[in-house]
Structures are given as structure tokens and as C-alpha cells.
């Protein structure tokens, strides 16, 4: 076309050099005398050390009517101990330059500590204190409960949080903990008190069923000594592993609109459940899901964003809800949430869903191309060294593996399995993951404007809810 195009020297696109070997790090596994499992991994250069603690305190262990108590307990760990008040504890942690986050999810409670390696012993000491002797003071628990109650309206007002809550309610039977909000509802949270939190802690928190993952530049750190002085002082009895209930879901194709009069966009969340990492199909499912909606150049965004401009971006993903060990009495009974999410401007809601379904139908009818599969493998395998540059990312994946009863080399082997997965397998996995007639669609948007066009698509019965 014009001026600027001809004024520089063009060169052919360069070819790749020789790849340098990289492998997902192998942790060293051991145990302390108190039964705590420890995974450690030296990552030279990573001055900020990441520590992840897994506690076998899953949400389905919460007492009836007390949804949210695991969350309150997790938060209360950093609100004082037998040696420090809540304010002192927070101050001491920050004096180490540390951050400490704790959250409760279906598989259990996770605590994440990050701290410069020079202050690791002190920060691990504080973490051990929190696990060994949490204060759970009445006033602090009461404050956390009130704070949690204050958060709920903020979550309800957020379109993507609201959509996620509705999808869980739709998919899972009312008797399943998964059907209800992870952090509880107003009704359940307001019943939580310090005595209840302590009882939950005493029933489900002990070193024998916990794991610590420690990753970072450990050069010159005598980790055995540091651990003996810190997490090694935590004591507790033993307990049999909790049985993991099977995950079931009703994925009858249907649409639920959460009414938001006047909303300028519609939040979409389209989902069902499918295979977890124990299933042989996992690598193919990862590959197929990436081709469908992993990035801006995947099938969904190629149409919905880059051709039509309906959205800033729509993503397809698979996220493990909970897994059980294949050696458990019931075998591997876990599941992942398979979903497509994004938001589109209100007027484009009908056309965008129509296109989205067309993308799924075309995928089922024609399958993926070899070129698509190749690019996806090259990306998923190639980005590994980038993705795992920091200690925190390595620690988080190792802790996920522990939580999901996977071998420590699962991620390391996954890359070879992805490379071996062919186009046909990836297509089959993607089509099985997202069958057009077995998807529950949640739309948070202006029902008066979107109900009619969405009903006309015939993707399932449409109901409208409020709140």
C-alpha cells in the first residue's frame, strides 16, 4: 500500500535455533517426625521463596449449615497465635517482607507464603506458630465473620462471580457441597463462631495429613534445621484419609439468565463437568480446549473477537474441582469444571451465542486441523520454561498435584504426553468436553433485552432469576 512499507530492508522470517533442554523440576519428597510431608525444590536465582501448605480440610467436611467455616478458619490463621496478637502477627510477617494468603476450596485449605530467602526461617516460624497454636479469639473470629458478610454483596454485584455461583447451583445436586458458594452464604456465615472454628480445626488440621511444598533458591539454607525448628514443632494425632465423594452434575442443555436491568454487557458462563487429571484423556482435553478457546487465536476468539468484535475475549478452560486417589476404595472419582466464559455487549448477546454454538458444531462436524494441533502443542509445551520461571508457580503446581493425589512427576510427564497426542484424539476430547446439547448456559445480563434472542436460538429452555 503505502510509504512506510518500502523504506526498510526486509529479511526472511528467521528459523529457530537449537532448543536448550528444560524439564519441570523434580521435587525431593520426605517427611518430618510429626508426619508432615515435605516437598522441596531448589531453584537457583529465585530469591523469593514460595511455601505452600495443603491441609486435608475440604469443604465437604464443613458441618451442616456452617458453609464458610473452612474459609473463616483459613483467614483466622493469620489473626493471632499463642505468642502474638492479630495485629502483632500481621506486623511480624510484613517485617519479613512476607505475604501470607490462605483459602479454602473443595479439596482442602491452602496456605501460600512468599518471603525473601534471607528471612525464610523467621517467616516459617510464624507460619508454624499459626498452624500449631492459632488463637481463634472470639473477637477476631467475630470480626472475620462480619467482614465476610460484608464481602458477599460485592461478589453478588460482580458479573463473573455471580455467574460462577449460579452455574454451581445449576450443575450440582442440592445435597452436594459443590452446589453452594465456597465461602458460604449470609445464612450460614452468620452462624459461625470461634468455638465452631476451633472444633473444625481440631477435627481436620494436623501435620500427619498435611503437606508443605518449599521452592526457591535454597543455596546456603540448612532447610532440615530450619524445618525442625519451625514446622517440626507442630504436633498432632493421626487420622485416616477422608473419603472423597463422587462428583455428579446435571448438564441437561439449558439457559439461566440472572437479570441485571440496564447492564451494558452480558457475562457468559457455559459449562459442565468432565475428566480430571487422572483420566487418560486429560492431555487431549487440554489440547482440544486450547484449540477451542485457549487464546486470542483459538477458534472462539477468531470469530467472536477478531472477526465480529463482540467481546474483549472469550476463553475455554478446564479446572479441576476435586480428585480422589485411583487407589481409594471408590477409585478415581474426580471431575473438572469445563467451561467457556467471557462477556459480550448486550445487543450482541444473541448473535454471539449463535456464533459460539456454530463454532462448536463446526468443530464436531469437521474436527481440528493438524496445523491447529501442532501450534497448540508447540505453545503448551514451549511455554513451560516461561510459566515456571518463578518459585511461586512451581510451588503452586506441586501443591496442586499433592491435592489431586497425582505423582510428583505428573507435570513433568504431561509435556511428553501432550507431544504424543494426535489431532484425532484432541478433536474427540474437545467435542466430548463441549457437546452442544449438554451445556448449561448462565447469562448475567439485561433479561428484557436478551431473553427473546437467546430463546430463539433453541439452545435449551430459558429461565430468568434475580438476585
Amino acid at each position, binding site marked *: *500500500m*503505502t510509504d*512506510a512499507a518500502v*523504506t*526498510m*530492508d*526486509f*529479511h526472511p*522470517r*528467521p528459523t*529457530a*535455533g*537449537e*532448543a*536448550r533442554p528444560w524439564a519441570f523440576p523434580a521435587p525431593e519428597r520426605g517427611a518430618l517426625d510429626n508426619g508432615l510431608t515435605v516437598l522441596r525444590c531448589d531453584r*537457583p*536465582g*529465585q*530469591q*523469593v521463596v514460595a511455601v505452600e501448605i495443603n491441609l486435608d480440610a475440604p469443604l465437604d467436611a464443613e458441618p451442616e449449615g456452617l458453609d464458610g467455616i473452612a474459609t473463616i478458619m483459613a483467614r483466622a490463621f493469620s489473626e493471632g497465635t499463642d505468642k502474638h496478637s*492479630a*495485629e502483632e502477627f*500481621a*506486623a511480624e*510477617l*510484613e*517485617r*519479613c*517482607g512476607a*505475604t501470607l494468603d490462605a483459602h479454602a476450596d473443595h479439596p482442602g485449605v491452602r496456605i501460600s507464603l*512468599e518471603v*525473601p530467602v534471607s528471612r525464610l526461617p523467621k517467616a516459617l516460624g510464624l507460619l508454624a506458630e499459626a498452624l500449631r497454636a492459632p488463637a481463634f479469639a472470639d473477637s477476631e473470629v467475630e*470480626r472475620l465473620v*462480619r*467482614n465476610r458478610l*460484608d464481602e458477599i*454483596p*460485592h461478589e453478588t*454485584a*460482580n*458479573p463473573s462471580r455471580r455467574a460462577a455461583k449460579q452455574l454451581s447451583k445449576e450443575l450440582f445436586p442440592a445435597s452436594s457441597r459443590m452446589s453452594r458458594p465456597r465461602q458460604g452464604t449470609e445464612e450460614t456465615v452468620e452462624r459461625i463462631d470461634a468455638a465452631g472454628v476451633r472444633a473444625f480445626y481440631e477435627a481436620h488440621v494436623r501435620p500427619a495429613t498435611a503437606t508443605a511444598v518449599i521452592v526457591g533458591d535454597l543455596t546456603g539454607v540448612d532447610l532440615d534445621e530450619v524445618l525442625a525448628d519451625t514446622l517440626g514443632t507442630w504436633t498432632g494425632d493421626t487420622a485416616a484419609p477422608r473419603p472423597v465423594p463422587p462428583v455428579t452434575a446435571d448438564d441437561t442443555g439449558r439457559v439461566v439468565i440472572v437479570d441485571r*436491568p440496564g447492564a451494558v*454487557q452480558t457475562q457468559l458462563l457455559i459449562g459442565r463437568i468432565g475428566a480430571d487429571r487422572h483420566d487418560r484423556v486429560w492431555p487431549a482435553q487440554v489440547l482440544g480446549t486450547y484449540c477451542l478457546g485457549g487464546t486470542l487465536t483459538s477458534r472462539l476468539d477468531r470469530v467472536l473477537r*477478531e472477526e*465480529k*468484535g*463482540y*467481546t*474483549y475475549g472469550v476463553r475455554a478452560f478446564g479446572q479441576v474441582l476435586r480428585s480422589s486417589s485411583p487407589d481409594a476404595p471408590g477409585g478415581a472419582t474426580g471431575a473438572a469444571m469445563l467451561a467457556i466464559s467471557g462477556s459480550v*455487549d448486550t445487543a450482541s448477546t444473541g448473535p454471539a451465542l449463535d456464533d459460539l454454538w456454530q463454532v462448536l458444531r463446526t468443530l464436531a462436524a469437521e474436527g481440528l486441523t493438524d496445523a491447529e494441533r501442532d*501450534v497448540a502443542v*508447540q*505453545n503448551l509445551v*514451549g*511455554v*513451560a*520454561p*516461561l510459566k515456571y*520461571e*518463578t518459585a511461586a508457580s512451581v510451588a503452586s503446581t506441586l501443591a496442586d498435584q499433592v491435592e489431586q493425589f497425582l505423582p510428583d512427576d505428573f507435570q513433568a510427564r504431561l509435556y511428553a504426553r501432550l507431544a504424543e497426542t494426535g489431532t484425532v484424539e484432541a478433536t474427540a476430547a474437545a467435542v466430548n468436553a463441549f457437546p452442544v446439547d449438554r451445556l448449561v448456559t448462565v447469562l448475567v445480563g439485561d433479561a428484557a433485552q436478551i431473553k427473546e434472542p437467546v430463546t430463539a436460538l433453541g439452545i435449551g429452555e430459558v429461565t430468568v432469576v434475580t438476585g
Partner: protein
Amino acid sequence: MPMGHTATAQAGSGGLTATEHRLANGLRVVLSEDHLTPVAAVCLWYDVGSRHEVKGRTGLAHLFEHLMFQGSAQVKGNGHFELVQGAGGSLNGTTSFERTNYFETMPTHQLELALWLEADRMGSLLAALDDESMENQRDVVKNERRQRYDNVPYGTAFERLTALAYPEGHPYHHTPIGSMADLDAATLEDARAFFRTNYAPNNAVLSVVGDIDPEQTLGWIEKYFGSIPSHDGKQPPRDGSLPDTIGEQLREEVHEEVPARALMAAYRLPHDGTRECDAADLALTVLGGGESSRLHNRLVRRDRTAVAAGFGLLRLAGAPSLGWLDVKTSGGVEVPEIEAAVDEELARFAVEGPTAEEMERAQAQLEREWLDRLGTVAGRADELCRFAVLFGDPQLALTAVTRVLDVTAEEVRAVAAARLRPDNRAVLVYEPVTADGDDASADEDETDEHEGADQ
């Protein structure tokens, strides 16, 4: 060939070093070696941001950033994304008030591809830019605006505070996302002119960090970027200087469908790059950073009047920086009660300053944030570009943490006393309305939005 000099490892830089070079066409290059992981980060900062936009064309710099991913002479359509991702890399671009950055993190053996791609669009974007991509990305950006700002509670707070804190006509009065009306008004010719004006090698800094061979890398940079002509068509941005303090309390009350009352405020603070700005960073950390800060302890723990309370710092080099207070109220608590408590804490701090222990905590927190930033090749590449573009010296990135650790408690107190005052802030108060309730306020609010767009 480029000329350069080699820096030695400086105290506090964690052993990191960087070398600087300049091509004949004016492109500045910063290289930093690190062979721990087989990855390399490429980062390109163009010295253009929303502050360079003119009236009626807000959002153009950001819209243009999107167009940079729509192909160039040798790269078709979404090829930039496809090629980088297919090579096992990750990439993106972002636009702020003061700059636009583009970055790729690649497995080492694919570094040359990223350089080739960046050079192709720097030199030949206009060969591919057409109406179709302009119209498409205009819609994408409008949906980005809806998703990130218009369709979330308090989503337009930052835009409103900015508009209050920087006066009408000031280059930072509007935020990078721009207004819907201006996004609609932008033409293909605007985009072409924007490229010709701002996307020149002498208006950019390129950094490459990681598992690289510096000599080979410089050779590739010379090969791909060396023939792109420089030009000097760019006008300097409008003057962003303002008096040290606002001199009065500016205030806006928003009646909107939000889940709780909120008190937000923007304080005018020293420019980035000054010792006073680092002191302000420490003051805001003591007062409102993390779970042991004064405001968190007072409002969330003791008074129990807030769900969350904190301060953030937006560092700006071309205009006063901005200290951003954000408090969401608990239950039925009224804003004046919060405001009185905040003012009391700030006034006390202005007199007493931080305790030795508070200084230690704040410095430890900021030190860890720096270690995090510099702990990845991409973070390091971005910081090297930042200091090169905004302050003319990339080496400053490697010593930034030592400057924060060098600040004294008295300096922290002094900047708080001078700046964290009621007469140096713009206040934004949110009062919730229900969807079917207070219609009058809702309409009023919508009018404000349109007025905002016209400014």
C-alpha cells in the same frame, strides 16, 4: 555498528548488570544476561501514551496498540500472536498515561523471531493497516471498556478521580481507555498519523533480557531494526507540571448501583524518579499497604467500619504522582465517620511520622515487591525500559530498591505532612441506589458520563 558501554554489578542490584547501546537510527537498546533459565524477554517501550492524545481523540494510543497486533508487511492478520505462541512464547502490549509497551517472552532459541516481528511492525505497520481491522478493533476496545470499567461496580472510579485530580486540559485528565464517543470518532487516518508521528526507532527503547548472547543479539537487532528510518515528527507532550498541592479539596458524589458506600480519594504526590516519591511510597505503605497498616488496623480491625481500606501509588514521571485511597464501608456505616478517622490517622502520621518498626516493615514489603519485579526476565526487561524511557538511564532499575531502603523516617513524615492533607486531594464518594429506586440520581449520573466523554 552500535556503540555501548558495560556496567559493572552495582551494590543492591543482586548481581544483575545491563549494557546500553544505540543504533544509528536512534533506537536505544538495553541488554541483560541471565542464564539460569532458557528464556529471553523482549520488551519495547514507545515513548507515547494517553498523555500525548489530543482533545476529541482520547483512547487513540490504546486503540492503536491493538492495531499493532493486526499484521504488518510480512506478517499476515493475527500472525504476530500465532507465530509467538506457536514458538512457545507469550506476548502482550499495554498502554498507560506515559508509554505503550509491547513484550514477548520466548524460549531462548526463538528470540530472533520476536526481534524480527517487532521490527516488522515498527517499520511497516501501515502496509497492513486497513479499515477492516480498524472497525473490528474499535469494537473490541469498546467491549474492553464495558467489561473492565462500565459493567463492574465502582468500575469508573479511577477515571472519575483522575478527571478530578488533573484539571481540564491537563494531559493526564483522561485515562488511557478513552471515552466511547472518542473511540467512535477515531478514523483510519488518525491511526496512520499516530503511527507516523510516534512509532519511530528514535522514540523507543528495546530491552532484551535472559539467556542471550549479547553480541549475537545486538547483531540481530542491527539486522532487523537498523534500516528503519528515524524521524522527528513527534511533538513533546503538553506540559504536565502542576503546583505541588491542589490547594483545595475537590469532591464528587456518585449515586450508583453499587453494593456498599465507598470513600475514595486521590492525593497529589511528588513525581516518580524523585527521592520524595520513594518517601511517599513508604508513607502510603505504612498507612495503607497490607494487613498491618495504620488504616487497616484502625478501620477494619478496631473501628470495624470498613470491609477493606488501603492506599495505592500510581507513579508518574510527567505529572504529579497519585496516591489512591480506597475504603469500602461495612454495613450501614456512613462516609463522614470513615473520613474523620482517615483524616485523624493522616494528621497523626504527619506529626509523629512512622515508627522504626513501621519503617522496617514498609521497606521490607517494598523490597520484596522489587525482588518479584526483577525475579522474572520479563519484569526486568520492562523495568529497564521504564527507567530508560522515563529517566534516561536503565541502570537506575537495578538500584531502585537501594534508593527505597535509603529513605529516612523523617523524609517519610515530611512528605506525608506536605502532601497527605485534605486540601491536596480529590474525593469520590459512592452512595448506593437500588436499580428500581432512585431514578433521578441514576439519570443525573448518566449525564455526567456524557459530559465526561465530551471533555
